[in-house]
């Protein structure tokens, strides 16, 4: 049965279903209780499950992640919310030195099934510190799983998988998707973590995107189709594990690739993807891999963010650059 849900509602449904099914799941963070979170993602969870299952903490992000680690060490499956990307930075030591490393430090004896939910990226007219794209920090840190759903269905399914799984997960929720409704089928089998999805098969070039840039890539492909160019779109869904095989297979087929991501491009996930494609598709590439990313600047203010964010136009400009004459 499909229902029409926004991404906020899809995530809410995933939390609800996980709380109902597994006593060890707990949800906590800042304003996630009676308020239901500043994005209303946890709306009604305290009312339904009580304030032992979904509760507010003191205002301290290192505290939230640190407490989640301790709870996971003692048998729970905490799902915590960081209010905005940049407000996860106080928890960076807990995430990097403990959450990511505990399994290794204990020879796999202590695994930390903690999910850190991060309202992610921009495009919502937020003021400074509210629209960072922080995935590179996490993706570079060995031991973390990093997910970035682009559809409300995946938001539901991947969050279920993340909560049920053994590894710590950074779950990046594109803010600008929170309030857009889509068809969701909660009964669909939970997707395995680590598989990219080919959203559109194309013959001429492959766009690789994740999270908030997937619709941008799809829009670019639509536009290109009207001009007779057939672009494929790969939605990574999972940044770590990175489904290299799917990406490589697509790019080998088309011989051209553009990576589309919102974060500043320098030393980013887009760099990794571009480097890996360049290495593994070397003899198949007709043109250098292009990256369409945010600029190497602090996230810009509401009135200028559209200049910074990858747009379908900018993606198509990059596609135009893929040395078609020589091919």
């Amino acid at each position, binding site marked *: 049965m499909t229902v029409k849900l926004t991404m906020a509602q899809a995530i809410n449904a995933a939390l609800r279903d996980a709380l109902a099914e597994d006593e060890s799941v707990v949800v906590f963070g800042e*304003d996630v209780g*009676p*308020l239901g979170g*500043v994005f209303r993602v946890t709306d009604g969870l305290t009312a339904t499950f009580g304030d032992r299952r979904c509760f*507010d903490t003191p205002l301290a992000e290192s*505290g939230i992640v640190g407490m989640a680690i301790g709870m996971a060490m003692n048998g729970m499956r905490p799902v915590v919310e960081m209010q905005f990307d*940049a407000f996860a*930075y106080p928890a960076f030591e807990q995430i990097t030195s403990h959450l990511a490393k505990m399994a290794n430090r204990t020879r796999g004896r202590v695994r930390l099934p903690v999910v850190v939910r991060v309202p992610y990226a921009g495009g919502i007219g937020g003021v400074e510190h509210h629209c960072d794209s922080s995935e590179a920090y996490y993706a570079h840190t060995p031991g973390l799983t990093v997910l970035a759903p682009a559809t409300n269905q995946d938001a539901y399914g991947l969050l279920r998988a993340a909560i049920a799984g053994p590894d710590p997960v950074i779950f990046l929720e594109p803010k600008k998707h929170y309030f857009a409704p889509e068809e969701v089928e909660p009964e669909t089998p939970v997707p395995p973590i680590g598989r990219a999805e080919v959203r559109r098969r194309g013959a001429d070039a492959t766009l690789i995107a994740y999270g908030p840039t997937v619709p941008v890539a799809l829009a670019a492909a639509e536009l290109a189709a009207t001009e007779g160019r057939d672009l494929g779109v790969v939605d990574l869904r999972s940044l770590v594990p990175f489904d290299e095989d799917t990406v490589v297979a697509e790019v080998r087929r088309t011989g051209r690739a553009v990576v589309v991501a919102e974060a500043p491009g320098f030393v980013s996930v887009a760099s990794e993807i571009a480097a890996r494609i360049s290495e593994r598709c070397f003899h198949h590439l007709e043109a250098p891999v292009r990256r369409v990313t945010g*600029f190497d600047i602090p996230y810009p203010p509401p009135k200028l963010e559209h200049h*910074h964010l990858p747009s379908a136009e900018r993606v198509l400009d990059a596609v135009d650059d893929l040395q078609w004459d020589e091919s």
Partner: protein
Amino acid sequence: MEELRMVRLLDADGGAVEDDRYPMPPPEVLVDAYRALVRGKRLNEQASALVRQGRLAVYPSSRGQEACQVTAAAVLRPGDWLFPTYRDTVAVVERGVDPVEVLTLLRGDWHCGYDPSRHRVAPQATPLATQLLHAVGAAHAATLRGEDTVVLALCGDGATSEGDFHEALNFAAVFAAPVVFLVQNNKYAISVPLARQSVAPSLAHKGIGYGMPGVLVDGNDTAALTAVLGEAVTRAAGGGGPTLVEADTYRIDAHTNADDASRYRTDDEVAAWARRDPLVRLRAYLRGLAVLDDEREAEFTAAAEADAARLRAALADDRPPEPAELFAHVRATPTPQLAAQAASLRAELAAERRQPEEER
């Protein structure tokens, strides 16, 4: 555990209250403070209206907390520094910064709007409690240079839970830095009530753990705040080190316009605090002293209205900021990559301008 008796110099009806620790500030100081309260309240209302009209992206109002705001600025001397948060627009304005400049960021621009060095007012901080450490650093720099600068740093009750609050208070105490920490305990951190932040008898009690004086003051009593903060500034300037001041107050408006306060507090609670409005109380006291009359009040109101009108006019101009400036200040010397990105955006914009409208 030791009780901390709250400092109060004016009762709810504006009657003077004796306190053996703090003298009543002189009437002219309080008249000035009242002028600032009127102005601050009007600014809060005007800015909130501008949000509703789409002229501001967001405005965290300090309605109800104006006494804290105006005294935080008033007790400082010219060379002193203020380290405010997103909620402290009124304090920044009282420190002498043009409200149009202060609201630059919230209009959708990318920078804080004013020159922090010129005004000795740090940019308004959003990441909670982080600015308290900057305040300690600024203060310690002054000490090292032998200056008697004092730094007043603001934060909320919620921010006291952050690690940076702890590190800042401890650094200040260990270095005997001339900092006054003013915690505006407005009872909520967005939706989270004080009871979820702390089960200490008061936030002022936290001073004990750092070895610094902790003072609990009625945050809606302009006279008490003036006395307590003034004394803390004097002590800091004299080498007496930092003070933690907790102001017992209340946020009358929602956290921001985006917030739905009905989800976490009752109208009755708000109404009870609205009756403790700092303006009403100070006004009653000053009228009782006969140092405030209709004429002066009208003058204050007119000045506040003029400010508000100027603000409306300035914000009616909604030309977007210059995109090229996105790159201009990130670093003193741009990286080659940044320079290339700036050039490509310039080229894009130029191409758009050349393209006739219909083709876009």
